[in-house]
């Protein structure tokens, strides 16, 4: 089977290549530089023809053009949804104001670019994936297949979590200090900054299980260590909560508590994870007995 400049059929072909069996056995195959031929150890020889440098650049150019077009298309689409979006986030906040002349225009512009980025992100990620995938080893492909969707899902869960629990609580808390004499007139650019600061860190924070489990799997951290250092981890959660959120104790606590829960979930899962090194040793010992 020869692959020459795969573009459209790539996905199917890779699916054929990476069966569970291949991926499992690939773990203990020493890393082979894919210079000319790569033997996957399936018995059947897979010859990978390398693309020339110009071919790669041409592909990169095409993918960049496609990505940019999608991004701009999404942004133009986003321009029409920027105002409804401001309406939506301003439901309980009252009308926003803008303080410097260009602020409203800039806020709408940035918002439409952000919407464009979100809308086109599937295309952007797919383009990135299609560009780098031919250069990956099967086990790397396997790794990406398995973890990237998980990472993205966790990120989204973090965002949704923040939006429906932490963000309303924080907003209510802060706006609670308003009174008849102290009127909330929030500048749109500052509010958008606040909105972002109340969401994005939670997306990042929800990756904690992935990070911890990866470290445990790689043998860099031991579960016992994580359990022993729980106190330090709790302190760290509050410090990170202070650093990542607006400088006030409320959002700090609102961020630290879910982080602690995530830490415990990670510990729970980490107990069931065996470091790769151990696996390899076990396998080789078993292999020796055979």
């Amino acid at each position: 089977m020869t692959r020459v400049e795969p573009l459209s059929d790539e996905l199917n072909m890779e699916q054929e290549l990476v069966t569970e069996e291949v991926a499992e056995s690939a773990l203990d195959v020493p890393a082979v530089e894919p210079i000319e031929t790569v033997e996957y150890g399936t018995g059947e020889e897979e010859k990978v023809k390398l693309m020339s440098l110009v071919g790669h650049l041409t592909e990169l150019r095409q993918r960049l053009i496609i990505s940019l077009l999608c991004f701009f298309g999404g942004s133009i689409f986003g321009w029409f949804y920027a105002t409804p979006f401001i309406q939506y986030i301003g439901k309980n906040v009252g009308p926003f104001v803008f303080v410097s002349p260009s602020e409203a225009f800039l806020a709408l512009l940035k918002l439409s670019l952000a919407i464009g980025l979100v809308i086109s992100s599937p295309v952007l990620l797919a383009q990135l994936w299609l560009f780098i995938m031919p250069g990956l080893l099967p086990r790397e492909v396997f790794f990406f297949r398995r973890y990237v969707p998980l990472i993205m899902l966790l990120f989204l869960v973090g965002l949704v979590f923040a939006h429906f629990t932490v963000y309303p609580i924080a907003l209510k808390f802060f706006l609670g200090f308003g009174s008849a004499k102290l009127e909330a007139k929030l500048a749109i650019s500052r509010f958008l900054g606040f909105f972002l600061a109340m969401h994005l860190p939670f997306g990042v924070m929800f990756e904690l299980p992935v990070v911890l489990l990866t470290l445990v799997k790689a043998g860099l951290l031991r579960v016992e260590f994580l359990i022993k250092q729980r106190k330090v981890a709790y302190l760290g959660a509050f410090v990170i909560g202070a650093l990542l959120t607006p400088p006030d104790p409320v959002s700090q606590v609102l961020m630290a508590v879910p982080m602690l829960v995530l830490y415990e979930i990670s510990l729970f899962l980490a107990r069931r994870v065996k470091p790769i090194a151990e696996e390899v040793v076990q396998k080789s010992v078993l292999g020796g007995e055979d």
Partner: protein
Amino acid sequence: MAAFEGLANLEIWKRLDEIRNRLIWSAVALVAMFGVSYMYTPYILNQISEKLNQLVFLSPGEAFFARLKLAFVMGLILTAPYILWHIWRFAGHGLKKSQRRSAFWLIPISFLLFSVGAAFAFFVVAPVALRFFLSFASTEMEALISIQALTNFVIGLVIPFGLMFELPVLMLFLAKIGIVTPESLVKNRKYAILIIFIAAAVLTPTPDAIAQIALAIPLILLYEISIVIIKIVWRKRLREAARSRE
């Protein structure tokens, strides 16, 4: 004693004395113009905020400091020719009479060009840009422009426009010392236009294309006018050179 007299008569002491006097006079003029400008700041602010429903200040000192800043910038612009004249008089010691004469018009012309640019920014560009930005006000986003932001916005338009309108002076100077020729200016017109657009984008305070285009178009016109003037000067100089050869 004689040694001290000799020292006292040295040229450098006279020069230092002169610098001191000129600095004092410049400072006095600056302070005076600053005071006069401060009186006129309400008029300027009225003129700018005509298009606005309301103007607010968000920190206690903001209104006062915005007026001070405006007055200082105005004072600096108005005093600039006087200060430049002092610099010119001082530097003139080292120049020949003919050189001094040829640069005689430099200060008034550059001041005039700066004023034209600043006035264009203040009376034409600023209102148009302001109207554009305020058109994004809606029920979700009310315009509550702060005086500081507005002052910075206007200063950020006026100063770059004034400075960029000095382009003909710069070009004539470069032509005079022989760095550019009419031919090279015509040949490199493409690059000049590109540079003008980039400079206009960098210098104007907002990321929209309005101020940029409003700055770039007059600059391109000035570029063309400068080329015509330089051609005339060039031809005259060639004729003189030919005559002196005969």
